[in-house]
């Protein structure tokens, strides 16, 4: 059974203080790892897809990386508007295409 564990559960940063969010996963075969951002009262918003170990993707202050066991979401010089819950999900190889999610990491960035 696919499993996703995210850590820490919550993270409080000062504006400009860079950090990383961790996503550890277990799948029989990885078809894709997805990062989403979720704001209160909203649905998850797609950020990145990573397909293979060593791959990196960037968007503004965010950079996602992937190894065979985990993924990191690096946040460089965060701003208060980066405050949100960040979700990691995996899709395994096989016939179905469902995503398995972690519980998410709640990030708060203080001005």
């Amino acid at each position, binding site marked *: 059974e696919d499993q*996703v564990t995210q850590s820490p559960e919550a993270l409080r940063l000062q504006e400009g203080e860079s950090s990383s969010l961790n996503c550890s996963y277990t799948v029989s075969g990885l*078809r894709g790892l*997805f990062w989403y951002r979720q704001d209160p009262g909203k649905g998850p918003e797609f950020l990145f*897809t990573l397909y293979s170990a060593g791959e990196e993707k960037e968007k503004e202050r965010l950079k996602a990386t992937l190894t065979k066991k985990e993924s990191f979401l690096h946040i460089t010089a965060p701003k208060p508007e980066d405050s949100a819950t960040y979700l990691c999900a995996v899709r395994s190889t096989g016939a179905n*295409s469902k995503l398995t*999610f972690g519980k998410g990491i709640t990030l708060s960035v203080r001005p």
Partner: protein
Amino acid sequence: EAGVTQFPSHSVIEKGQTVTLRCDPISGHDNLYWYRRVMGKEIKFLLHFVKESKQDESGMPNNRFLAERTGGTYSTLKVQPAELEDSGVYFCASSRQTGTGNSPLHFGNGTRLTVT
């Protein structure tokens, strides 16, 4: 393009009543998914439609839940009769059909269901 739309945004019902949730996916998206987040837990898969056909319903908790997607457009998820443990946020998501089967899911804002 318009996003995934869910209705209602909130629903409060009593135990034993029936509730129907609706989802309108992004136009042209053949894949439609239902997920649920119970308080304190992760978002969990319920089922997957490809057009009007159920591709995978392994996540449906029991036979009190019935999902339909007539005509391959919008979908409904009915809970009958509702129980207290059905409370949570129900998300709908859609995606394009691609050769790799690896397109990202686009989510609606969810329906918050409270059963009292």
